[in-house]
């Protein structure tokens, strides 16, 4: 029965993915789209297997900085949300900075980061963290604001300290929001890593992609894109799974 449920839950995404690939293949084949513009899935897969070892190497490099960036970023996001929530006045005060952090374009920020931190992995991690922290912070802050009024009042009456209210009530209550933010961040983290790799350096899917693009190798460029999408999906599902595992009290439907 458990297996059946897996199959039941598993088929819709598989069907959709297959459908999309099929449509794509047909569009390319019949639509006469030039393959240097939009290669067919078949071509991409063929190319991907041919260039496998290098793609794999680049993928590993990307996964590494993505994971570090995501963990640092969303960890920071949670801490930041907590601090902004707990310290009065901070939230209003720091909103402008939060928004600022998302609105300095990479082309302006990148050179500054590199000049400050060199060509190593640090500026990349910073960039990915910058991408990842924001949805987490925003969603978690909103979560804190939504704390159940009755429970909050009860905690106040108990004489709970701010700290106790935070850890015993607000934080667990905001978990669904936190995960909402984490899922958004997880989705962005791979792209964040790719963009960070454009900062420079000689490996990673971002590097590979831009190189292929500049040699007009659309097929290989799309290999990179496919890997990126697959990575994000995987990562997203991992976070979603974690959510299911942690948030178990919200059994909604007794159907």
């Amino acid at each position, binding site marked *: 029965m458990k297996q059946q449920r897996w199959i039941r839950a598993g088929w819709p995404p598989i069907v959709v993915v297959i459908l999309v690939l099929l449509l794509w293949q047909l569009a390319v084949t019949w639509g006469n789209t030039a393959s240097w513009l939009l290669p067919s899935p078949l071509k991409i897969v063929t190319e991907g297997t041919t260039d496998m070892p290098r793609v794999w190497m680049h993928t590993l490099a990307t996964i590494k900085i993505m994971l570090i960036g995501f963990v640092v970023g969303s960890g920071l996001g949670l801490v930041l949300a907590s601090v902004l929530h707990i310290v009065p006045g901070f939230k209003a005060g720091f909103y402008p900075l939060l928004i600022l952090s998302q609105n300095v374009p990479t082309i302006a920020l990148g050179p500054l980061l590199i000049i400050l931190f060199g060509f190593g992995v640090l500026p990349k991690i910073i960039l990915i963290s910058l991408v990842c922290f924001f949805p987490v912070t925003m969603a978690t802050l909103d979560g804190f604001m939504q704390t159940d009024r009755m429970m909050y009042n009860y905690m106040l009456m108990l004489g709970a300290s701010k700290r106790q209210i935070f850890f015993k009530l607000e934080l667990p209550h905001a978990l669904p929001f936190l995960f909402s933010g984490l899922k958004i961040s997880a989705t962005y983290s791979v792209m964040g890593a790719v963009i960070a790799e454009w900062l420079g350096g000689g490996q990673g899917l971002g590097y590979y992609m831009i190189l292929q693009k500049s040699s007009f190798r659309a097929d290989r460029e799309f290999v990179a894109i496919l890997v990126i999408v697959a990575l994000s999906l995987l990562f997203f599902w991992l976070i979603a799974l974690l959510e299911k595992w942690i948030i178990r*009290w919200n059994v909604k439907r007794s159907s």
Partner: protein
Amino acid sequence: MSKLELKNIHQSFPSKKQTTMVLSDISLKVNDGEFVSIIGPSGSGKSTLFHIIGGLLMPTSGEVLLDGTPVTGQKGLISYMPQQPALFPWRSIEENVILAQEVAGIARDHALAAAREWLPRVGLGGYEKELPHVLSGGMQQRVSFLRALLSPKELMCLDEPFGALDALTRQEMQAWLLNIWEQNKRSILFVTHSIEEALYLSDRIYVLSNKPSTVLEELVVPFGRPRQEAIMKDVLFQELRQHIQGHLRKEVQHDQGR
């Protein structure tokens, strides 16, 4: 000296159009080790009064004294059972029971041991590890009651603790509460809708009028301790009951006029 004293409490809530006056000059006290009940029409401001005692609300005017010192607006000094259970859905039953103790700084192990010891006594043995949503309304209320009972504060404020219980479970819980109270004589302030319950349990009863609420009557219950359920059949008991009921009837009928 009295454990708790309320002096000329007024409370009004600003609303869109006009300000509603809810409490109007309420003064009452609970002596050390005393069991005091509050009875009043629905919506008269009993829960509001508890919020004021607990420091959640600053009264529009008036003062709250605990052991003679003014504590208006100070929180964390009483043990409190809210009208709605307010259980935390992510905590298991036993973890919910120890919440008040945890906040008061009692060691978790110790608190858990107490919770596990007491849960079967309120008929919830075997539910220690369940989440609140599997419990029935009455069961949740008992969890909330136990949570307040185990809180290490000298004054207990209970807001309709047995409202969702069937007659028998209720009687049992009453007897049991009385027993515990007689043993360690904590002070109790008790909101109830049942006149019998108030008469059976309390040393004194305050009867509140309808909104804006004033103390209609303060009534000393003349039965000795320890009490038996049998007193409910006493003629005096019935008379007192009629007496209070009469008071309230006027209030409620008056209310219908609005």
